[in-house]
């Protein structure tokens, strides 16, 4: 069966973990890995796995896009360079899956709104943040039952699992997650707190979700919705688990999660990477399937005047 050819920009932890997932895909075929440092381990690793590589950034990829038939690109660099990367590739008709917190395209959390993105002719989809992917499904589960006035998430990641990009741009990470908790999760207001824990051995990613419902929470319906959503996320992140809760205290609903990674590239504690790359791969697979089925034709995006 034909596969849709893909490029990954950013050969760091996320890019490399994503590469492993794409290599297993039935509809996606990774063909290019794009970096900016000639000596980078990630580029060398991608080369060993049979990909073409460039250390000249997106400009090194652009001349090959058409002849190599690249239709989907994943950006795992940083919020600051994403917009430029996206513009250059969109002009060539390449759909961009954005794993940075730049959030210039519609936000996607697969079990909540992936299907809504189909048929919208979007050329850039943003994967929010790892904290968002881990927690927003729970906010959406509660808000599917009743109105949520306020949702707050606390994501704790192992120090070893987050790279320099996230550290340098922690403000974008926090703000993009907060905004998406409200917008995609369906809460009137959202807040995100991010903690980096250096414990050795490293701790699994932990996520806590607090929702304040407008009225007295319907405990039974919320518990059922939460369990159903856990199962939906487990379809692409098998290590997504409810550790405690939901518990109810007045209008406050508390949900305590743990995310264990598949251990594709980094160890299993890095569930934050796993949920991000698994969500991005799942999103790309939906678009790839549409392209293969003839329902979606990607068109070059003309430069806005």
């Amino acid at each position, binding site marked *: 069966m034909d596969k849709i050819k893909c490029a990954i920009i950013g050969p760091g932890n996320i890019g490399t973990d994503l590469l492993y997932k794409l290599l297993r895909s039935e509809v996606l075929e990774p063909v290019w890995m794009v970096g900016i440092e000639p000596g980078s381990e990630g580029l060398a690793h991608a080369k060993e796995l049979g990909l073409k590589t460039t250390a000249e950034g997106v400009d090194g990829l652009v001349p090959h896009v058409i002849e190599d038939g690249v239709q989907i690109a994943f950006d795992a660099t940083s919020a600051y360079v994403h917009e430029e990367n996206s513009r250059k590739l969109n002009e060539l008709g390449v759909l961009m899956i954005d794993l940075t917190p730049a959030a210039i395209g519609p936000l996607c959390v697969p079990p909540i709104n992936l299907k809504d993105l189909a048929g919208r002719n979007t050329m850039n989809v943003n994967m929010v943040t790892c904290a968002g992917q881990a927690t927003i499904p729970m906010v959406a589960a509660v808000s599917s039952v009743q109105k949520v006035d*306020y949702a*707050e998430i*606390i994501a*704790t990641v192992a*120090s070893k699992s987050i790279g*320099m990009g996230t*550290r*340098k*741009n*922690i*403000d974008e990470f*926090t*703000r993009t997650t907060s905004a998406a908790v409200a917008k995609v999760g369906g809460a009137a207001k959202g*807040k995100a*707190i*991010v*903690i*980096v*824990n*250096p*414990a050795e051995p490293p*701790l699994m990613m*932990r996520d*806590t979700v*607090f929702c*304040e419902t407008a009225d007295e929470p319907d405990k039974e319906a919320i518990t059922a919705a939460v369990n159903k959503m856990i199962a939906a996320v487990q379809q692409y992140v098998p290590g997504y688990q409810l*550790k*405690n*809760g939901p*518990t109810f205290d007045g209008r*406050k609903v*508390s949900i*305590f999660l743990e995310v264990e990674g598949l251990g594709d590239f980094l160890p299993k504690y890095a569930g934050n990477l796993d949920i991000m790359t698994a969500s991005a791969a799942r999103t790309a697979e939906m678009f790839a399937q549409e392209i293969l089925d003839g329902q979606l034709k990607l068109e070059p995006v003309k430069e806005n005047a």
Partner: protein
Amino acid sequence: MMSLEEQVRGRKLKLHDMCLRDGMHSMRHQITLEQMVDIASGLDDAGVPLIQVTHGDGLGGSSLNYGRGLHTDREYISAVTKVVKNATISVLHVPGIGTLDELRMAADCGAGCVHVAAHCTEADVTEQHIGLGRELGLDTVGFLMMAHMTTPEHLIEQALLMEGYGATTIYCVDSAGYMLPDDVTVRIGGLRAALQDATEIGFHAHHNLGMGVANSLAAVAAGADRIDGSAAGLGAGAGNTPLELMAAVSERMGIETGVDLFKIMDVAEDRVLPIMPQPPRADRDSITLGFAGVYSTFLYQAKEAEQKYGLSARDLLIELARKKMIGGQEDMIEDTALSMAKERGLI
């Protein structure tokens, strides 16, 4: 060998009051604007040069996780900057909790100093925030929390990162009140030797093992220029170094603080003590914080879990120490309590 007094006599020291920020923890973030204005003007009149005013967990800390503030940071900071005449108002800012917009707001409201805080091994999350602090013209401090959890050598590396981002003062923060004077001496001495001469060094203590004043003196002897304390000790756990005690000891040892001793004693007694539900005391749970090395603010939610689930707060704090939980992970108190209560058949 020089005596402690010989090492500190004649030194100039900036005292930084924490009762309106760290004390917010003990007050569950419910200090009123009137109380805040009353205490801040007293501290200002006593000559305290720096007064911190923020939610206990810093800008943006008002949350379900840490507790909602009675007022917003904007309301507190604006109210206090209006009344102080000489003191600089400072704020706490923890990247991952507060955002750059909140730091801009604090500067707009008249704050003149920011403590940009990170766990002692994670200084590289502070680059944006230290950068903005400098850009806004603030006295910008790198605040390395839970400093007992890493080696002195690693702490120095992290301090150098913050200095490189533009911080002009670096703090060693004993958030758990775990350190003993030798731990302080080696860390502050190491920072003094490694950082540029123009960079100031600070120390922030918790009194969980009753070592606040002794540790602060050790810090001054090893080269600290700034010491955090709280009037009447109002702060998380068994409180911070009581500022009036530090002022009295400083005066006896010839350390120049510029603070009027009797006035600061009166602020503690007449303005701070009356607002406290109970004066900070090293009870068994606070001693546990210091003994096991747990973030001091965990005290309150651990005590709540004791009430709710019939677990011992001490057992819970020991378990949180074993799991190496750090500052900000208040959500894991309830989570750990739920897991322990399930295991013990309490729920």
